[in-house]
């Protein structure tokens, strides 16, 4: 199989993460908020890691956050990513607190900085959308 024909590993929703991926398709970044202590967490887990309550509600994130840290990948790990090397990876901390692994789009790798304000920008695929971030 040539490198070009291997697709990127695009996740598919499972039952627990379906509200997240359905929200993403509609341009909303969905988080889970504990019904007992109010701690907001990245989906998807049934228990709050702060108080272990399993009561929760899905809430929409503002989509705003900042780059906590980032790296520039050069290693050929996955054939589908080879054409994009070197590409960036980042951890974004959302205003609501949760952190997620993502990529920064709309900025050159050289322009990235820890602390840079960013806003969510969904990458659309056939049946899911993936949250990426661009400079705010």
């Amino acid at each position, binding site marked *: 199989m040539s490198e070009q024909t291997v697709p990127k*590993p695009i996740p598919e929703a499972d039952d627990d*993460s379906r509200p*997240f991926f359905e929200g993403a398709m509609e341009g909303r970044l969905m988080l889970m908020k504990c019904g007992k202590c109010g701690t907001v967490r990245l989906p998807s887990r049934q228990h709050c890691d702060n108080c272990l309550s399993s009561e929760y509600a899905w809430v929409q994130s503002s989509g705003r956050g900042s780059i*906590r840290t980032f*790296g520039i990948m050069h290693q050929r790990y996955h054939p589908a990513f080879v054409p*994009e090397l070197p590409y960036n990876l980042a951890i974004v901390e959302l205003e609501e607190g949760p952190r997620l692994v993502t990529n920064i789009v709309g900025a050159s790798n050289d322009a990235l900085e820890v602390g840079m304000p960013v806003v969510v920008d969904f990458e659309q695929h056939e049946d899911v959308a993936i949250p990426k971030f661009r400079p705010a």
Partner: protein
Amino acid sequence: MAHPLRGATAITGLGMTPMGRVFGKSASELAADAVRTAIEDAGLQKSDIDGLLINPGITGITGGGISLPLQNYLGLTNLRLLNHMNAAGSTAAQMVQYASMAIAAGMANHVVCVFADTPLSEGKSSGAAYGGAGRAPGRPRGMSGLYAASGYFGPNTGYALAARRHMALYGTKQEHFGQIAISTRQWATMSPLAQMREPLTMEEYHASRWIIEPLHLLDCCLVSNGAIAVIVSAADRAKSMAQPPVYVWGMGQGHPGDTNRAGSAPETETGAKIAAETVYRMAGVGPEDVTVCQLYDCYTYTVLVTLEDYGFCKKGEGGPFVEDGKLGPGGSLPTNTGGGELSGYYMWGMTPLSEGIIQGRGQGGERQVPKNDVILVTGNGGILNYHASLILSPHAS
């Protein structure tokens, strides 16, 4: 008053197989070679062994790793202590801890702790061994798929992200990581066990290819096949055994957890901070008393942050601390004197532990440090998630 378990046990046996691109033996076969060597080294008979603690490396996850059936492969009967343990790179130090506690509790006399791993296959790259997550065929399911979708592969990614955070917060420079690689390589040039024995310059460090910025290839550890076994015994027995005893003065662990949200700093404040309090208290020493360090060095950055968390310098000052080469031969804090995992051999936590034992015995040959009185040995696993440490000494008290 001294801690009642300080010096209660000692490491009395050490067995190491050839390590590196070593092919043709399974993990169990390598483990058996290491255990036989350790028993001979200690001057014991196999029948003296009444405890066995087992730690597979990555093959414990990917398949083919050692586990409980190793007992029967080794023909160890009537054991009074047995477990299969995995807290990643912190396991080796943990095995010595649980062995020591069991011996002090009267549960066992001579406990073998063994690590074996065969991540390398002939004709395949070292990178193939650890970057596998996310490369499975088909679509990943659920939220964890966001990692693969973003191109996050293997521990290299996590450590690069951690190192970048440290650089941004504290002004740590690429040269600081490079200096750790160089100091470690200086030691490796003197170790017949080391896989990378050519001297390294800063120019060569900078020229080594990027894996994921800010990590060059030479910021990352080796990947090795091989096995190491150690034997832990009661101190009163150790005195009359074949090798100079290396006493266990202190034991500590730290596992900070990661809430994955605002308010935690998993990249720059590690479990070493928690473990340091415990291990120093038990040993009755502080960082100013440590004469030689064997620090888990899966990455150069791991050494830098570990030095900070053990109090050798303030948080954020690890870069300037290592800049003068004090970790290298002739320096004031000899560290990873066998070449560590960066240049020596990658046997998870057995790498720092084995070199700690060799230095404690005074058997380091050309690389033997003159002052081996207080030896700090650390183990780290996950992305700075799991940490365990020992303070060892050639002195009983």
